[in-house]
C-alpha cells in the first residue's frame, strides 16, 4: 500500500432530524465527494447506531480507507466511540477526525437552513484538510506502581484510604496534624441523628488503624512529587525526617478551614461573638455560658462579602445547633442540675427583643405573630437565625428546617443591602437590623451571637497546587477536571481530589467523594499499566538550543534537559497543551496530533469557497 495515497471516508450523520432537519445532508454529501482525497462519502440516520458503525467498519475494510471523518454531534461525547470503531477495523485511532455539525451548527442556526448547510460544508472541508495530514500514533504501555498515597487524614481521606486498602493496595495516609480526624475533631455532634461526633469519628479511625494495608503517617507532609500517573516519586516529611517513596496514584484530601470573620459583626471585639466552629467546640467542651437568647447570623463573609460562594453547609449546621438548643438547652447550659433558681432567672429575662414588638398584630398574620412574640410558653431560650435565605437543600435538611420551625426557632431575613449590625449597649450585645417583612428598623438584645462563616481553602493549598501541578479555582479550592462528569479527577492523570479541599461539603458528601476518588484511583492500580493518549510534544534535538524556555513553561514538569543538554519530553507526563510548542524560540517543538501544519490546514480550509 502506498503511504502517500490518502483515502478518506466521510460519514455524515442526520442525528434523526437534529442535523438533517436544518442542514441539507444529501447536498453536503454530494459536495464532500468532490473534495480531494475523499474516496467515499455517505450519510447515516444515526452514525453512532449499530448500522452506522458497521458502515464505518465495512468501508474501511472494503475501500481501504486510511482516514475517517465523522460529521455529527460533538467529539466531546462521541469521538471515543468512533475511534474504537476505527480501531476494530484495523485503522489507527489517530487517523480519525470529528467534525461538529450539530452542537455548533444545526442547533445554533435553526432558522438559517441554507447558511447552516454552507457552514456544514465548510466545516467538513476543514475536517478533511486536517484528516489529510493526520499521522498514526502508537500509544505506549507503562507499568504502574501498585500503591497509593492519600494526603489528608480527615473523613474524606480516611474513607478513600480504607476503600483503596480494602481493594488490596497499600496506602500511605499522610496527615500533617498529630491525630487523624480533620475538621470533625472540632464538632460536638453530627446532624441529623445527633450522634456524638467523637464516636462517629472513632469508628472510622479504628478501622483505619486496624487495616494492615494502611500506613498512617502523622505529623507528616508530602513535600515533593515528581512523575506521572502510575509512577510518582514522592518525598514524605515527618517532623524533619524525609522519606522517599514510590506510588502509582495520589489522592488529595487536605480539607478546609473556617473563615475568620475579623472585624465583622463585632467578632474579636465582643465576648460571646463566636464562629460556628467555635460554638461547636464550646458545646463539645460543655463551656456554654448561661444564655437567655442566642442569634445565628448566616452568610458571614460568604456570598459576595469576602468570599463569593455559598459555603453550603452552614445553614444546616446552624439549624442543627438551633434545634439542639431548642430541644436540649437546659442540659446544654448545665441548668438541669442547678435547680429552679437559675431557671427562674432565665425565665424572667427571656423575651429580650426591644422596640415596639408589643404592638398588637395578633390574629392578622398568624405565623408572623408567633415569630414576633418570641419564645412560647414552656421554652425560655430565644433562638434567632438571621439569614439571607435558608438553604436546607435535599430531603433530610428540609425536614430539619421544618423541625426547627416547629421548635419556634425564628428565622429573620436580611438583605445584603441591609446587613444587621452588632453593637454593645449597657453591657449587652445588641443586634440592630432591618426587618424586611415589617419594613422597619429594629433592635434585639442577645446573649450570644454565632457567626456562620464559610469554609475556606487551606493556607497551603497553593503550595500543594504548585507541587502537584494541579489547578486551584478562583476561590482557592482545588479544581476538578470537569465539574459534572469528572468530579473527583484532576486533569492530570493519576491525581484525584475529594472532600472539602475542592469546596464546602458535609460529612456524607465528603465520605462519598472519598470513596469515589478511591474507585477512580484504583483503576490504574488494578489494571497494572497506563496508556497515555498520544497528544504530546516532541523536541527536535537537532534544532533545540537547550534554552530551557519550555522547561520553565511546562505546567506538568514533563520536559527535562537530557544528558546532551537539550530538552526531552516525558511522554507519559505530557498532556499536549502545546504551550511549549508555541513558546519554543527555535521552533524545535512539534505537537503530536495538533501540529502547526494540521491547525493551519484546517483553519485555512475555512477560507476557501464551497462550490456546488
Amino acid at each position: 500500500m502506498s503511504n502517500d495515497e490518502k483515502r478518506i471516508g466521510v460519514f455524515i450523520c442526520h442525528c434523526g432530524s437534529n442535523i438533517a432537519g436544518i442542514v441539507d445532508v444529501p447536498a453536503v454529501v454530494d459536495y464532500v465527494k468532490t473534495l480531494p482525497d475523499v474516496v467515499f462519502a455517505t450519510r447515516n440516520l444515526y452514525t453512532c447506531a449499530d448500522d452506522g458503525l458497521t458502515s464505518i467498519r465495512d468501508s474501511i475494510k472494503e475501500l481501504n480507507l486510511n482516514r475517517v471523518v465523522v460529521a455529527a454531534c460533538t467529539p466531546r461525547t462521541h469521538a471515543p466511540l468512533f475511534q474504537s470503531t476505527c480501531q476494530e477495523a484495523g485503522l489507527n485511532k489517530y487517523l480519525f477526525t470529528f467534525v461538529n455539525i450539530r452542537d455548533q451548527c444545526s442547533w445554533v442556526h435553526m432558522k438559517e437552513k441554507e447558511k447552516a448547510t454552507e457552514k456544514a460544508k465548510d466545516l467538513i472541508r476543514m475536517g478533511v484538510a486536517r484528516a489529510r495530514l493526520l499521522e498514526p500514533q502508537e500509544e505506549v504501555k507503562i507499568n504502574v506502581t501498585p500503591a497509593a498515597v492519600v494526603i489528608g487524614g480527615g473523613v474524606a481521606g480516611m474513607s478513600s484510604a480504607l476503600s483503596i486498602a480494602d481493594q488490596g493496595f497499600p496506602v500511605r495516609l499522610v496527615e500533617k496534624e498529630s491525630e487523624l480526624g480533620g475538621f470533625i475533631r472540632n464538632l460536638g455532634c453530627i446532624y441529623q441523628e445527633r450522634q456524638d461526633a467523637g464516636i462517629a469519628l472513632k469508628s472510622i479511625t479504628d478501622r483505619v488503624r486496624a487495616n494492615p494495608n494502611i500506613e498512617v503517617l502523622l505529623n507528616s507532609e508530602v513535600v515533593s512529587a515528581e512523575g506521572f500517573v502510575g509512577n510518582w516519586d514522592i518525598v514524605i516529611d515527618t517532623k524533619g525526617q524525609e522519606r522517599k517513596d514510590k506510588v502509582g496514584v495520589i489522592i488529595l484530601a487536605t480539607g478546609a478551614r473556617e473563615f475568620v470573620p475579623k472585624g465583622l459583626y463585632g467578632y474579636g471585639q465582643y465576648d460571646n461573638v463566636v464562629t460556628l466552629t467555635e460554638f461547636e467546640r464550646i458545646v463539645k467542651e460543655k463551656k456554654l455560658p448561661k444564655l437567655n437568647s442566642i442569634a445565628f447570623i448566616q452568610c458571614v463573609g460568604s456570598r459576595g462579602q469576602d468570599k463569593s460562594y455559598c459555603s453550603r453547609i452552614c445553614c444546616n449546621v446552624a439549624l442543627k445547633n438551633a434545634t439542639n438548643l431548642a430541644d436540649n438547652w437546659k442540659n446544654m447550659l448545665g441548668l438541669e442540675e442547678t435547680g429552679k433558681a437559675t431557671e427562674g432567672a432565665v425565665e424572667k429575662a427571656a423575651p429580650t427583643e426591644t422596640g415596639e414588638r408589643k404592638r398588637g398584630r395578633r390574629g392578622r398574620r398568624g405565623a408572623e405573630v408567633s415569630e414576633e412574640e418570641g419564645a412560647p410558653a414552656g421554652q425560655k431560650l430565644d433562638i434567632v437565625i438571621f439569614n439571607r435565605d435558608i438553604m436546607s437543600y435535599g430531603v433530610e435538611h428540609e425536614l430539619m428546617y421544618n423541625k426547627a420551625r416547629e421548635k419556634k426557632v425564628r428565622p429573620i431575613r436580611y438583605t445584603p443591602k441591609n446587613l444587621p449590625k452588632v453593637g454593645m449597649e449597657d453591657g449587652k450585645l445588641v443586634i440592630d437590623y432591618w426587618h424586611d417583612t415589617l419594613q422597619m428598623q429594629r433592635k434585639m438584645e442577645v446573649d450570644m451571637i454565632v457567626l456562620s462563616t464559610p469554609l475556606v481553602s487551606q493556607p497551603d493549598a497553593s503550595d500543594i497546587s504548585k507541587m502537584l501541578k494541579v489547578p486551584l479555582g478562583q476561590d482557592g479550592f482545588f479544581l476538578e477536571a470537569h465539574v459534572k462528569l469528572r468530579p473527583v479527577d484532576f486533569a492530570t492523570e493519576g491525581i484525584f481530589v475529594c472532600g472539602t479541599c475542592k469546596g464546602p461539603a458535609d460529612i456524607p458528601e465528603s465520605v462519598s467523594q472519598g470513596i469515589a476518588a478511591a474507585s477512580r484511583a484504583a483503576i490504574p492500580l488494578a489494571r497494572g499499566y497506563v496508556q497515555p493518549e498520544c497528544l504530546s510534544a516532541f523536541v527536535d534535538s537537532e534544532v533545540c538550543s537547550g534554552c530551557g524556555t519550555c522547561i520553565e513553561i511546562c505546567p506538568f514538569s514533563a520536559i527535562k534537559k537530557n544528558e546532551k543538554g537539550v530538552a526531552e519530553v516525558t511522554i507519559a507526563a505530557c498532556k499536549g497543551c502545546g504551550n511549549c510548542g508555541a513558546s519554543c524560540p527555535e521552533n524545535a517543538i512539534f505537537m503530536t496530533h495538533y501540529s502547526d501544519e494540521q491547525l493551519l490546514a484546517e483553519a485555512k480550509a475555512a477560507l476557501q469557497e464551497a462550490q456546488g
Partner: protein
Amino acid sequence: MSEFEPKIVVFLCNWCSYAGADLAGVSRYQYPTNIRAVRVMCSTRVSAHIVLELFKEGVDGVMVSGCHIGDCHYINGNYYTKRRVELAKKLLELSGVETDRLRLEWVSASEGEKYSQVISSFVAKVKELGPSPVLKQKKLVTNLVAAVEASKYFRLKTLTGKEVKLTGKGNVYDEVIDAQNYDALIDKAIEDEYRKSLILELTNDNARSVKELAKELGEPTDKTLEHVVALRATNMLALDHIEGTTPKYKAIFVGGA
C-alpha cells in the same frame, strides 16, 4: 449585492470554550453562521504566527477563546494565550490591519449563553469593519509575511515565553523586571523585529538602499539604518552593490528546505 458575510475563524480550547460552544448548542442559543471553529487542546497552542498567517490568507476575523484566567485546564496556559494574542495584535497594527479583527475571549464550559453573545458581537464588529483589505493590497500581504516571520523569531518567542520568569523570579542575575517595564520592553522588541523582518522581506528580491527602505517602513532613516546594521551584524542582510554613492542591501537567504 447581498450583505457582506465575513469568514471568521475561532480557536476554541477543548476544555472550556469548546464545551461552552457545545452548551450554546444544547441550549439552542442562536448566533450568526459566520464562524468556523477549530478545536485546540489549550488556547495557548495558538501561536501568534498561526493567527497572522490566517490574516495573510485574507480571513476577515479571528477569535481565540479559552478558559477564564485561573481556570485553565493546564493551570496557566491561558496566561500565555493573552500574551500571544497581544503580540499578534501589535503585529497586526504594525502591518496596517485593524486590530479589532482579532479578539480574545474567555468562555467557560458553563457559559453557553455568553458564547453566543460573544460570537454575535464579534461578527457584528467584523461586519462593521467590512471585508479584509489584505488580499486586495499587495503591501499588506508583504507586511503580514514580515509579521509572521517576526512572530516566529526567537527574540519575541523568548520574551513571551520567559515573561513569567523574568517578571517573577528574575533573570540569571536575579534582576526582576516589573510588569510595566516588561510591556514596554516587549512593545519595543516587537516593533524592532517587525521592521527587521520587513526589511528582509523587502530586500528578498530587490536590493534596496536605506533611504528606500525607510520610506517603505515609514520611519526616520537613522532608525532604519539601526535595523540594517543589526541585520548585517547577524548575517541576515548583506551589501549587494553600490549605486553611485548609495549602498544597496539584499537579504541573505538562510537555510530552509
